[in-house]
């Protein structure tokens, strides 16, 4: 491997293990003066650890170069549907690094962290008001953890009213994969509901599945096809009449903020992906935050500790008879929660609705510009994201994957592909509220150029794409069939 390859000042970079030498040490450990205590001898390593030896500047360059290969919302447009990749304001990063917030310990006495507790309590109240479900726990560490927490709350409420036989959870076939995973982890049996031809929940399919064993319906609104479940009030009424709860997946809350409240629709319990809806850098997989908001029926079962306000002071309540207990080792992912509170306060109660309005406007602008060039499976206005398919391009032998890869050559992160599963060749585009018209136009121009090339039969570049990045089209099939997950340490003694 040539470690010096570069294009301009963009550097090719080998794996750490591929560096030629292994004897340089960036850290010199002093060694052990005397014989090891007997109690530690059993833990002595028998073979070398196989850690590559790099000098400190080499290590630093390795990771900085890899970071330069990365694409994030700060380097370009990132319209990954269902992921809400909005801009993360710099002021929020400054805020969470304030020593009084960044340097506190999770186990500090309540009276030494009054400021932090006041902020978190404020966020808790605001989230409850935004979603119309007044009782909130900030503990869950991300969305799927929130789903699991919500399922545990529903299960506890059913047990408390002597209905432990209710263990079926109904989940539409358009749902995020985390929904059945969370319900199963909570000991529930999942039943899939087929979507109707308009991409929405089919009321007849719901009625047919609503029996005496149903614990809950798990629903995302707007759903993953980017359309609003316009029968939501009727849906919730039917589930309630059958004795079940309605769990709302808040992944798509960005479409609703300040405009409509899940609690008002009849939803009993909802998680909020605060890292998405209220901005935290989350492309790298975390940390996130998944507060759960519930109505009065589920409130007694919320996790402890709870943040309680008494006059002008705040305290943590550590026990409560019906609580499901702890779901995290602390009161929540504080840094993510503080960024969310800052994002909410930057808009304020009067302007918060602009988030949803601009997010929905941007998605519909993209849809309007692309709908004559790409197949739209569910025509009409969309919410915060628009769904297209490769149906028209397929006739020229071009699939969604080719379109996505070509976008990389044209300077854009691809949209979400092949999800939701209810349409063939899905392309799900979520621009969010933080993109300008100029950026949306540049992306749409690229998409239209791709469609025009397909129409003209000029498809070679699409099949080969991407050709510009250091790594071209990766063989995902072989990677999945024959994964190599460890570096072969054949040269080790």
């Amino acid at each position, binding site marked *: 491997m040539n470690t010096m390859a570069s294009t301009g000042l963009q550097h090719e970079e080998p794996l750490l293990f591929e560096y030629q030498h292994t004897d340089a040490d960036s850290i010199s450990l002093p060694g052990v003066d005397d014989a090891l205590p007997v109690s530690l001898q059993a833990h002595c390593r028998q073979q070398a650890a196989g850690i590559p030896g790099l000098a400190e500047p080499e290590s630093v360059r390795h990771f900085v170069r890899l970071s330069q290969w990365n694409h994030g919302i700060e380097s370009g447009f990132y319209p990954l549907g269902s992921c809400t990749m909005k801009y993360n304001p710099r002021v929020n990063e400054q805020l969470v690094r304030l020593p009084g917030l960044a340097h506190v310990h999770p186990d500090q006495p309540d009276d030494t962290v009054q400021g932090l507790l006041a902020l978190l309590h404020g966020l808790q109240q605001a989230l409850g008001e935004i979603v119309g479900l007044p009782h909130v726990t900030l503990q869950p560490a991300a969305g799927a953890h929130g789903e699991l927490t919500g399922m545990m709350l529903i299960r506890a409420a059913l047990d408390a009213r002597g209905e432990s036989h209710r263990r079926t959870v109904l989940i539409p076939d358009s749902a995020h994969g985390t929904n059945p995973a969370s319900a199963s982890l909570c000991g529930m049996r999942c039943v899939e509901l087929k979507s109707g031809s308009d991409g929405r929940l089919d009321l007849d399919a719901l009625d047919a599945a609503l029996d005496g064993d149903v614990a809950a319906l798990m629903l995302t609104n707007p759903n993953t096809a980017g359309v609003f479940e316009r029968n939501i009030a009727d849906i919730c009424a039917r589930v309630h009449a059958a004795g079940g709860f309605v769990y709302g997946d808040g992944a798509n809350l960005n479409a609703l903020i300040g405009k409509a409240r899940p609690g008002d629709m009849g939803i009993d319990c909802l998680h909020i992906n605060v890292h998405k809806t209220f901005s935290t850098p989350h492309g790298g997989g975390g940390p996130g935050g998944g507060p759960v908001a519930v109505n009065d029926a589920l409130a007694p079962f919320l996790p402890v500790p709870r943040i309680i306000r008494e006059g002008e002071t705040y305290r943590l309540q550590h026990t409560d008879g019906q609580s499901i207990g702890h779901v995290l080792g602390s009161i929540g992912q504080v840094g993510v929660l503080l960024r969310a509170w800052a994002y909410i306060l930057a808009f304020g109660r009067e302007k918060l609705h602009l988030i949803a309005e601009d997010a929905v406007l941007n998605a519909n602008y993209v849809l309007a510009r692309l709908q004559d060039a790409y197949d739209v499976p569910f025509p009409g206005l969309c919410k915060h994201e628009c769904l297209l398919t490769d149906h028209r391009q397929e006739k020229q032998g071009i699939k969604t994957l080719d379109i996505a890869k070509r976008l990389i050559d044209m300077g854009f992160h691809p949209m979400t592909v*092949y*999800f939701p*599963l209810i349409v*063939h060749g899905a392309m799900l585009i979520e621009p969010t509220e933080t993109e300008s018209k100029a950026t949306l136009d540049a992306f749409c121009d690229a998409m239209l150029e791709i469609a025009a090339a397909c129409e003209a039969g000029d498809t070679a570049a699409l099949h080969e794409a991407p050709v510009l990045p250091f790594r071209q089209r990766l063989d*995902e*099939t072989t990677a*999945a*069939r024959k994964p190599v997950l460890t570096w072969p340490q054949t040269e080790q003694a």
Partner: protein
Amino acid sequence: MTIPANLKYTKDHEWVRIDGEEAEFGVTDHAQEAIGDVVFVELPEVGQRVTAGESFAVIESSKAASDVYAPVSGEIIAINEALEDAPQLINEDPYGKGWIARIREVGDEHQELMDAETYGVFLQE
């Protein structure tokens, strides 16, 4: 897109080959095309009873994991162990080397399944 005339088909794109007291299952050419490159198949166990319409295997591709539903009821007497090392057989030969399971004590649900001509029309729709 091939649809062999001697098989029966489900709306979920499985095929069944009735062979006297036994039957063989797999997924159709259309299904393997839609699923994409198969990377893993979760097979049922021999001796397991399957019920028509219920999931008995899972096919994973780089796009998604898809349930495979039993076209008819019965007891599994053989599974295609070759799929463990060569899941691509489902893409390469869906009606032959890509078979998934064989059953006995075949239920009479196969009377209600589609023949090749009807399945072809179903795909057009």
